[in-house]
């Protein structure tokens, strides 16, 4: 395929879509499938077959449309009419919608989401522009929405240096959590000398509660391929890898199909889009280790070694895969690349706040009314995410804190709700942007218990290479457990803090260094809760059982029990 053919295919597909009098988009993201989306698709398919599969009626199984807790979702597009979305769709409801639409009657209002619903209206979708709008397995539909046009533009109109400069101008920073300026990284790898160079996309998303990368890979795989190919061209690589975590089989399968389709169409492989640029992409599947999200561990894993981090420097930009310069970015970062070139770096950097430009995808979950996947401009106040997009807290609960960055991040208390969500502001609060997990907690959550949950996760996921992380996580977890069960002493609290600070400073990789963050940040904002557990043996949120005793009290209790037994003349 050459550039002209790409444009023709886009035009043809678009025309076909516009000619449809009715397009039904059923969300087949994982949560919607779990809620029964497949039955909805089957029912609609049966109806359409019964009608003789008319060319102007289209049914599309899309990727994630967003409001995951309200699935299955059905979006209806009719020419000249605003689009309409139904939540919690049953096969019956879907068929009613189809039939009334065909008879041009008034569509059912049952489960219809309002036109001005803030969940949709307040979002800015760049990375997720195609998610929920196209069939993820269809190359044509991606192309119809301008897909691969950015790659064509880069290959035919720009030098690799121009591409790097474009990314620098866009102000894009790493979306995996580190926030390193992406353009700068590209330039570094471009300048590094090596016999070969590699591009690696990190899709080893592992934070509890985070599923942005999964959803992106499942809903719009070609976007990632395009981003990686542009990066390959920019840095001078001929091979890319996507490292997908093993728990995401659908993502891996869709990416595989996407690679095959793109290669067949001449969008990947040798002489991409009739240029002199050749580029292959392969998938590598993780084996279930959180630490493989750390870049050096990930590279080790791709090379078939034990997935554990090594000390940097040398950074992957100098010596990555098999000692060659390697560019490694998160899949969401790559997902931003096509948008940067389709709307232009300036337009891209118009979104955002301070040094954080563009948009960020968040997996909004926890005690909010509207759980789901959202994309918002950087710098949006947290309050707007929670109360407008999220619709406030479920069951009328009061907001207590939001956790960003998962087990490596921290919590943001209610008094900081107006903080703009961007890299710098979150860091100032002792949290991090992270990969995009955003867990909202109400007053029913005990912050010590929350910290303990994340520490349990980290102790399970520590690779075991360095002492502070391997053993520190276990000891911190034990201290937190003691605080939660009521047997902690004031000195335990002190030891907890010392250990957290030490671990942050001495751990080998980012996982260990960030593991104490949930504890340190809950200590910072909710110290009184820790104190209540330790001093008064009381859990203010009523979560912790507090059914153990500190030793001095245990001794007294046992003695009482024994003297009681002796009075009864029983043996014990």
């Amino acid at each position: 395929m050459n550039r002209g053919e790409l444009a023709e295919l886009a035009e043809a597909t678009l025309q076909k879509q516009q000619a449809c009098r009715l397009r039904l988009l059923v969300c087949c993201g994982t949560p919607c499938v779990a809620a029964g989306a497949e039955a909805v698709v089957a029912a609609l398919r049966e109806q359409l077959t019964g009608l003789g599969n008319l060319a102007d009626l289209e049914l599309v199984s899309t990727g994630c449309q967003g409001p995951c807790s309200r699935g299955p979702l059905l979006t209806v597009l009719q020419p000249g009419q605003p689009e309409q979305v139904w939540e919690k769709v049953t096969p019956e409801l879907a068929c009613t919608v189809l039939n009334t639409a065909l008879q041009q009657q008034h569509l059912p209002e049952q489960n219809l989401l309002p036109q001005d619903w803030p969940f949709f209206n307040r979002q800015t979708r760049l990375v997720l522009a195609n998610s929920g709008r196209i069939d993820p397995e269809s190359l044509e539909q991606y192309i119809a929405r301008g897909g691969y046009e950015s790659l064509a533009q880069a290959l035919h109109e720009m030098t690799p240096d121009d591409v790097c400069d474009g990314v620098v101008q866009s102000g894009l920073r790493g979306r995996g959590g580190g926030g390193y300026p992406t353009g700068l990284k590209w330039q570094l790898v471009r300048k590094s000398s090596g016999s070969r160079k590699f591009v690696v996309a990190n899709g080893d998303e592992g934070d509890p509660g985070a599923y942005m990368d999964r959803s992106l890979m499942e809903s719009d795989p070609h976007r990632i391929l395009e981003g990686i190919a542009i990066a390959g061209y920019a840095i001078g690589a001929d091979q890319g890898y996507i490292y997908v975590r093993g728990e995401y089989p659908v993502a891996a399968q869709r990416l595989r199909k996407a690679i095959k389709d793109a290669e067949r169409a001449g969008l990947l492989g040798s002489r991409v889009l009739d240029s002199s640029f050749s580029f292959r992409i392969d998938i590598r599947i993780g084996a279930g280790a959180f630490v493989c999200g750390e870049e050096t561990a990930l590279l080790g894993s791709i090379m078939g070694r034990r997935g554990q981090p090594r000390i940097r420097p040398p950074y992957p930009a100098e010596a990555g895969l098999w000692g060659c310069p390697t560019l490694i970015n998160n899949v969401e970062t790559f997902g931003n690349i096509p948008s940067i070139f389709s709307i232009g770096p300036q337009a891209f950097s118009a979104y955002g706040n301070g040094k954080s430009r563009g948009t960020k995808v968040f997996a909004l979950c926890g005690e909010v009314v509207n759980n789901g996947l959202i994309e918002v401009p950087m710098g949006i106040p947290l309050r707007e995410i929670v109360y407008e997009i999220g619709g406030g807290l479920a069951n009328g609960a009061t907001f207590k804190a939001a956790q960003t960055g998962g087990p490596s991040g921290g919590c943001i208390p209610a008094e900081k709700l107006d903080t703009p969500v961007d890299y710098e502001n979150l860091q100032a609060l002792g949290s991090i942007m992270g990969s995009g997990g955003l867990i909202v907690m109400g007053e029913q959550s005990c912050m010590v218990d929350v910290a303990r949950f994340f520490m349990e996760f980290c102790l399970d996921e520590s690779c075991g290479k360095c002492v502070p992380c391997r053993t520190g996580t276990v000891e911190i977890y034990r201290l937190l457990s003691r605080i939660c069960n009521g047997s902690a002493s004031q000195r335990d609290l002190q030891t907890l803090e010392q250990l957290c600070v030490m671990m942050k400073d001495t751990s080998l990789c980012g996982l260990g260094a960030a593991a104490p963050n949930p504890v340190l940040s809950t200590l910072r904002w909710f110290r009184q809760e820790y104190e209540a557990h330790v001093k008064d043996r009381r859990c203010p949120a009523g979560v912790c059982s507090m059914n153990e005793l500190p030793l001095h009290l245990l001794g007294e209790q046992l003695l009482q029990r024994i003297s009681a037994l002796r009075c009864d003349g029983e043996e014990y």
Partner: protein
Amino acid sequence: MPAITLTINNELFSARKEQTILEIAREHGIDIPTLCHFEGLEAMGGCRLCLVELQGSPRPVPACITKAAEGMVITTSSDKLIEYRKMLVELLLAERTHTCSICVQNNNCELQTLAAKLGIDHVRFDYLHQQLPMDASRERFALDHNRCVLCLRCVRVCDAVEGAHTWDVRGRGSTSRIVADLDRPWGNSTSCTDCGKCVQLCPTGALYKKGATVGEMKKERSFLNRILERRRLAAQGRSL
């Protein structure tokens, strides 16, 4: 070999460019504690005891693996570093069941010596008392996981010097364990050559010669001196 100048503990030193901070410090008699490090084996940076403060770096850096660079300003000991090192060794003492009094390596143990040197007279953390097995299936040697500090010297020397790669690690985090031949009893290992390098390099009583009782195991390393020195120099691009 290009020379560089750097400052360690307020004193200026000149050094070769490929040297690590640790090598330079030791050449000049400045003591930095180490445990997983062994001269001539590839540095791992796992025990974190050799952390030093480097001006301009937000966190301490491991001296064993950080190459010296022109103008570096390094502090090898401070209240903070001493406290960190103490905590790290305390964590190791708490992690497995290092009961010195009944150990073959008593009084010849690097961990025991290190603890005393760092001023540790008690451990502030919970002893984990993990239930770990011993492997005494090999004819001449035995492995006691309860005394292992996971420094991986055995893994590295077996792979890089003996070339057998009998040892590796299974599991992760605090459940990591040294295994022979993809987790078979050591006695069934077909790759092990019985050379004993792992045993002699083990800093504690985790790997020992059978027949030794409490305090009787002494590690004999001189037979490895030459080959390890050659490897150490080769890492700097030099030869003996």
